[in-house]
C-alpha cells in the first residue's frame, strides 16, 4: 500500500512537469528527474537547475528594493554626477550593482548544501546500530539514544538524530524547519535572500552582504553629493529637493537600510574570521562552560586562513542530484519515506503552535506521575560525557491514569492512510499508554492528541484549541516548557547553573534579541535545536523556542 502511494505521488509530480517541459517531451520515454520527487519543501525552476526556499515573497521585495533604488540612482543622480563630476561614478555604481545582484541570485537560487534524507535501508541500518537492549519485563521502554558523541580534533561534539531526515546530522549541520531539510554548515535561513544559508552558498551570501553595504553607502553618498552640488549654485536646499526629488527618496531608502546592512556585514565578518556560523554563535557552542575549556575545532588556525577557507576555499558539489534521472531503484528507495511524512503546510508553524505546549504543560504539572523529570535538562552541551538523551527522555507510560478512551474518538483519525506502518521508528507503540515521547508518525501524534484530550476532560480544561495543535508539536518545545513551568522541588534549574553559565545564557539571549531587532532572523534560525543549557531557563528564550 505504501509503495503504491509513493508511485502515485511520483506520477502526479511528473505529469505536471511533463506538460510544461518540451525538452522532456522530446524523449520517447518521459523522464522524471530527481527534483520532481524531492522530499523537502524547496521549489525548483528551469527543470531543476535553480532552487529556492518555499516562500519567496520577501526575496522579491529585496530584489525590488535594490533594483528600484539603483534605477532611480542611475537615472537621476548618475546622469548629473557623470556630467558634472566624473564618469567613474556610473561605472563603479554599475559594477557594484552587477556584483550585488549576481551574488544575491547565486545565494538564493543555488543549493545551500542540503543533506539528502536517508533511504529506508539506511535508516533501518542506523536504527539497528543504535539499538539498546531492553529487558523484557521492564515497566518502561527505553528508546535508543538519539544523540551520538564524536571527537572532532579533540573536542566532543554531540550529533543529534534528525527524525525527518533519519540521519545523525553531521557536525555543524542543522535542520531548517522552513525548507524541511538538513543543511550542512547551517548558518541561518534568510528570508531576505529566500533561501537557507549553508556551506555551499555562505560565500555568496557574505559577498552579497558586503557588496550591498558598499552599494548602499555609495548610492547614499552620491545622492547627498548631488543635492549639495545643486545648492552650491546659490540656491536654497528646498529648491534642490524640488529639483531632484528622486535623490531624496534614494537617500532616505539608503539611510534607513544601511545601518542594518552594515551591522550584518560586520557580524558576518566576525563570524567568518572566527569560522563560526550564526547558529553556533547564538547557541554559544564554543564558549567555555562549567570551567571546561571549549574551542572551535573547525577553525583553520588564524583569521586570514579562516577567511580564505570560507570565502575562497574549495566548493563542495551539491549532494542532491537535482537533475539526475529517477530510476526505479531510486523511486523504491524513497517511496516509503515520502509516505511517512505528512505534508504539513507551512502555516502550521505559525501562531497556533504557541497554544499547544502551554495547554500541555498545565496538564503535565497537574499529573506528575506521567512525566519523568530529569535534571539533565540543565546539562551543558559540550560538557557532557555520555548521557544518552536529554530532550528525548523516555516518558512513555502513565500507569496511574486510566484513560477512558471512547471508541469513536479512537477511530477518529484512523482514516489517515499508511501512517502507522513505519517499521523503523515506531518505537513507542501503545494501545492505552500515553506517549508524550517522540511520536514518529502523524497518526501517533494524532492519537496522542486524542488521549490528551481525555486527560484534559478529566481536569476540566477547555479542549477546543487542542484539537489540532499537537500535530505540529516538537518534543523539545514541550519538554523545555515543562521544565520551565513545573515547580518541582528536585528540579533545581537555577541552582545547578554556575555563574558563568548564567552569563552565557544571558549573553546568548541578548544576542538573539539584537539579531531579532536588526534582521528577520528570528523566523529563520533552527530554533528547536537551540541548547537547553544555554537558553532553557530564560523565559524569553522559551518563547523563542515555541515560535
Amino acid at each position, binding site marked *: 500500500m505504501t509503495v503504491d502511494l509513493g508511485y502515485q505521488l511520483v506520477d502526479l509530480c511528473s505529469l505536471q512537469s511533463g506538460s510544461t517541459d518540451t525538452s522532456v517531451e522530446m524523449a520517447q520515454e518521459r523522464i522524471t528527474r530527481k527534483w520532481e520527487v524531492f522530499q523537502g519543501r524547496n521549489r525548483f525552476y528551469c527543470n531543476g537547475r535553480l532552487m529556492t526556499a518555499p516562500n519567496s515573497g520577501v526575496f522579491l521585495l529585496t530584489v525590488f528594493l535594490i533594483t528600484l533604488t539603483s534605477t532611480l540612482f542611475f537615472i537621476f543622480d548618475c546622469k548629473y554626477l557623470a556630467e558634472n563630476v566624473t564618469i567613474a561614478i556610473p561605472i563603479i555604481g554599475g559594477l557594484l550593482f552587477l556584483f550585488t545582484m549576481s551574488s544575491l541570485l547565486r545565494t538564493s537560487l543555488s543549493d545551500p548544501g542540503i543533506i539528502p534524507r*536517508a533511504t529506508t535501508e539506511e535508516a533501518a541500518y542506523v536504527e*539497528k546500530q543504535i539499538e539498546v537492549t*531492553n529487558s523484557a519485563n521492564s515497566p518502561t*521502554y527505553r528508546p535508543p539514544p538519539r544523540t551520538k558523541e564524536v571527537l572532532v580534533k579533540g573536542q566532543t561534539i554531540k550529533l543529534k538524530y534528525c527524525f525527518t531526515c533519519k540521519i545523525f546530522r553531521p557536525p555543524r549541520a542543522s535542520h531548517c524547519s522552513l525548507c524541511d531539510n538538513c543543511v550542512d554548515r547551517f548558518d541561518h535561513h534568510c528570508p531576505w535572500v529566500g533561501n537557507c544559508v549553508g556551506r555551499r552558498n555562505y560565500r555568496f551570501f557574505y559577498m552579497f552582504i558586503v557588496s550591498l553595504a558598499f552599494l548602499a553607502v555609495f548610492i547614499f553618498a552620491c545622492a547627498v553629493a548631488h543635492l549639495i552640488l545643486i545648492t552650491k549654485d546659490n540656491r536654497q536646499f528646498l529648491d534642490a529637493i524640488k529639483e531632484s526629488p528622486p535623490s531624496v527618496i534614494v537617500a532616505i531608502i539608503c539611510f534607513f537600510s544601511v545601518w542594518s546592512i552594515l551591522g550584518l556585514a560586520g557580524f558576518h565578518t566576525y563570524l567568518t574570521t572566527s569560522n563560526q556560523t550564526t547558529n553556533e554563535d547564538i547557541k554559544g557552542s564554543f564558549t567555555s562552560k562549567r570551567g571546561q575549556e571549549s574551542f572551535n575545532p573547525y577553525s*583553520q588556525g588564524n583569521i586570514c586562513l579562516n577567511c580564505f577557507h570560507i570565502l*575562497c576555499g574549495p566548493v563542495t558539489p551539491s*549532494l542532491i542530484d537535482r537533475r539526475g534521472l529517477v530510476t526505479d531503484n531510486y523511486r523504491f528507495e524513497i517511496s516509503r519515506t515520502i509516505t511517512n511524512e505528512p505534508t504539513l503546510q507551512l502555516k502550521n508553524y505559525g501562531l497556533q503552535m504557541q497554544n499547544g505546549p502551554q495547554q500541555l504543560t498545565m496538564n503535565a504539572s497537574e499529573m506528575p506521575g506521567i512525566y519523568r523529570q530529569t535534571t539533565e535538562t540543565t546539562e551543558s552541551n559540550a560538557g557532557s560525557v555520555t548521557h544518552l538523551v536529554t530532550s528525548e527522555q523516555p516518558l512513555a507510560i502513565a500507569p496511574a491514569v486510566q484513560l477512558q478512551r471512547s471508541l469513536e474518538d479512537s477511530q477518529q483519525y484512523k482514516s489517515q492512510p499508511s501512517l502507522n506502518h513505519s517499521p523503523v521508528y515506531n518505537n513507542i507503540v501503545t494501545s492505552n499508554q500515553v506517549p508524550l515521547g517522540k511520536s514518529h508518525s502523524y497518526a501517533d501524534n494524532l492519537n496522542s492528541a486524542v488521549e490528551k484530550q481525555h486527560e484534559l476532560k478529566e481536569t476540566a480544561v477547555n479542549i477546543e484549541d487542542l484539537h489540532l495543535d499537537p500535530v505540529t508539536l516538537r518534543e523539545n518545545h514541550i519538554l523545555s516548557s515543562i521544565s520551565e513551568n513545573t515547580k518541582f522541588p528536585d528540579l533545581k534549574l537555577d541552582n545547578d547553573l554556575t555563574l558563568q553559565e548564567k552569563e552565557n545564557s544571558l549573553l546568548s539571549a541578548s544576542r538573539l534579541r539584537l539579531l531579532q531587532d536588526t534582521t528577520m532572523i528570528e523566523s529563520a534560525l533552527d530554533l528547536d535545536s537551540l541548547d537547553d543549557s544555554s537558553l532553557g531557563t530564560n523565559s524569553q528564550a522559551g518563547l523563542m523556542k515555541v515560535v
Partner: protein
Amino acid sequence: MSNHHNNGSRAGETEQMAQPQCLKVFIQRDYSEGTLVKFQTRFPQELEGRVIRKTSLETTINRLNSYFAEAEKATCSTYCEGCLACLTAYLIYICKETHYEKVSTTLTNNRENDTDWQMLGKTSEEDPQARGSSGTFLERAS
C-alpha cells in the same frame, strides 16, 4: 518491545526488497579531522566471514578518503580559483568546473576500472558522495 519492532521492520524489508539477497552496509563518516569527507575504516561486523576481506575494504576506503582529501585540500590554486570566481562575481562557475568537480569526475572514472571496487560489489548507481552522512557498500551474498 524493541524486539517486536525490530522483527517487524526486518520482515517488512525482506518482503519489499527488490534484491533480498543483498546485504547493505553503510560506512559511517569519520569526523575526527573536522567536517571533511572521510569515511571510517573500521570493519563493519556484518561483513565478518563474508567474501570481502578486511584489507581490501580498508584500501578501498582509504583510496576514497585520499580522493576526497585531494578534492578538499586547501591549496594556493584552489584559493586563487576562489578569488578569481569572486572577482568575476561568480559568473565563472557557469562555464568552468571547479577543482572539486574535476577530482570527483576522475574518482567516478577510476572507479569503473577499479577491481577492488568491483569486488566490493558496489554498483555504479550508488555514489558515496551522494550520501551526506554515510557511504554505502553492497555485498551480494554468495
